[in-house]
């Protein structure tokens, strides 16, 4: 299997002179019925792919905004099983790849073989599991080996060079470059080391590199998009969707367009 669907979506976007824009949404925030509406809106608004977050009882890598969205979704009784089923119900209308972001334990309960078997039927072509570092990824990689589903790894600012290279070598889909030392959430600034970090990462990687964590303004999208192949925007999108501010979402996505790579 090529596991290229997510990669291709990003590369096509880059070839057209745009940076990839991957919004993160919390599935079930506002009820499970909002999932279809939000995904179709984001597709229409120009998202390259969509990261679909699964609520969890103990989200250790998330900041307040996504934790609260997760708690709202949990209160609606939303689970990974229900989300997979709902996604499958409108799969035909979704033309861009979906990527699921979930902590490991719900996946273990779902069953590694079962999730591998069900992803494609739900339009899911990537999995991001923040508490599954490279060392522990073997089991799930095995389960996914005959599918088109990429297991997407995160790289952090604190990763030493050898580790970045090991992760880049094993990368599928894209590399999720964590742009801050910390958890998800809005930030006003990024460190100066970031530029060099993203350059090294791009040089080491055969798949695109997307920057994520803390990106919340059109200016962030332009700056960080310029250093990477695209951006992932989480908390700012979650907040805007929760408040029904679709215009803000559109403005953020627009900031990723017409960014000719001049590097």
């Amino acid at each position, binding site marked *: 299997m090529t596991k290229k669907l997510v990669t291709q979506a990003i590369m096509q976007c880059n070839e057209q002179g745009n940076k990839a824009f991957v919004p993160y949404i919390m599935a079930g925030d506002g009820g499970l019925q909002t999932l279809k509406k939000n995904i179709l809106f984001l597709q229409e608004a120009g998202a390259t792919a969509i990261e679909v977050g699964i609520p*969890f*009882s*103990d*989200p*250790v*890598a998330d*900041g307040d905004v996504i*934790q609260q969205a997760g708690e709202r979704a*949990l209160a609606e009784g939303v*689970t*990974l*099983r229900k989300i997979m089923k709902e996604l499958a119900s409108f799969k035909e209308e979704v033309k861009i790849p979906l990527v699921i972001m979930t*902590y*490991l*334990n*719900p*996946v*273990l*309960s*779902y069953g590694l073989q079962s999730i591998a078997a069900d992803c494609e039927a739900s339009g899911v072509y990537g999995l991001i599991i*923040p*508490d*599954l*570092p*490279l*060392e*522990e990824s*073997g089991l799930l990689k095995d389960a996914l080996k005959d599918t088109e589903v990429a297991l997407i*790894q*995160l*790289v*952090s*600012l*604190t*990763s*030493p060079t*050898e*580790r970045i290279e*090991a992760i880049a070598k094993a990368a599928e889909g894209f590399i999720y470059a*964590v742009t801050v*030392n*910390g*958890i998800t959430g809005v930030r006003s600034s990024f460190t100066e080391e970031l530029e060099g970090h993203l350059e090294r990462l791009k040089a080491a990687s055969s798949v695109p590199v997307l920057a994520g964590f803390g990106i919340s303004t059109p200016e962030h999208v332009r700056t960080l998009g310029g250093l990477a192949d695209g951006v992932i925007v989480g908390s700012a999108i979650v907040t805007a969707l929760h408040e029904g501010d679709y215009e803000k979402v559109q403005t953020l996505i627009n900031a990723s367009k017409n960014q000719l790579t001049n590097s």
Partner: protein
Amino acid sequence: MTTETKGRYGKFGGQFVPETIMTALQELETAYEEAQLDPAFSKELDYYLKEFVGRETPLFFAERLTKHAGGAKIYLKREDLNHTGAHKINNSLGQALLALRMGKKKVVAETGAGQHGVATATACALLGLECVVFMGKEDIRRQELNVFRMELLGTKVVSVDKGSGTLKDAVNEALRYWVSNVEDTHYILGSALGPHPFPQIVRDFQRVIGDETRRQIVEHEGRLPNAVVACIGGGSNAIGMFHPFVDDQDVKLYGVEAAGSGISTGKHAAAIAGKQEGVLHGAYMYVLQDDDGFIQEAHSISAGLDYPAVGPEHCHLADIQRVQYDSVTDQQALEAVQLLSRVEGIIPALESAHAVYYAVQLAKEMKEDQLVVICLSGRGDKDMQTVRDALGGQSI
């Protein structure tokens, strides 16, 4: 570099953590390996354990408790006599020295009952480290005085009102804080839990309990005990006590989980009894969870056992049936608090009382020439309000 999975106990353990802390874990592993090889490190730790903590702790023959049970001879390993009132200081001090060695000036910790928080605040005051402790809102209510103790020791206590507001949520917040401050901060995890190398480090620093016990029982009785009993929340006092005996097949080991209101009520903290495997806080363990993999709240009258999983090495020892794990209810633990107070003049922590209750039942079934050791992991001062409320009033 190696990207093999590390820190496995059978199928349990591992390193299921965000990428941001993988580097910190590797740094900790290296620093710990170097410290283990450095005689100056163990010399310094031994010095503080003796002169500051007051080790070694006695192994006390509980004559009247033995008579009460009417079976095997019962010994108490008096971890309650440690400075700060529980075994927790053994680990806090060891890890605080490790933090200094790594050049980290700040420490973060979680606490349930407050014992680990107080121990860590104490070690940080002693060694001049800055300390912040995350504690669940519910636990702050239950253990008000421990919050004040930590503050008096110069530690910042942060209330966690997310989730159930107990230990697991405090660990989540401590992990989030660590991820964001990893460059100058060491995380002193309080139990034999979490990602590798924490379960190993905590076990090694608590192993002093079992090492002393082994030597002391031979001094008293000229032989090893027939049974050793310890309570299990995350399992740090138990793993420290058990570890030196694991290869002695004739020494039976018993871990006592908190059955809360009773296993059948669903309101308990007995993760091994539940037999559900999963990942929480960086390790593959037995975990209390629902069918969708959401972690469930644990329930116990003792805040220190109120955690929905059990450390990975215990899970493995359960799996290979080297240790027998059983559980004791809130009510039974309360009985044991009263019993030990009256017959021995020792008020045990509610956590330790679980082990006391179980050991008394066990001793009854054993012969008079047999020996049972109880790890009396902590003293009951912190629980006086809880016990008084549970017993229904002002006087008994």
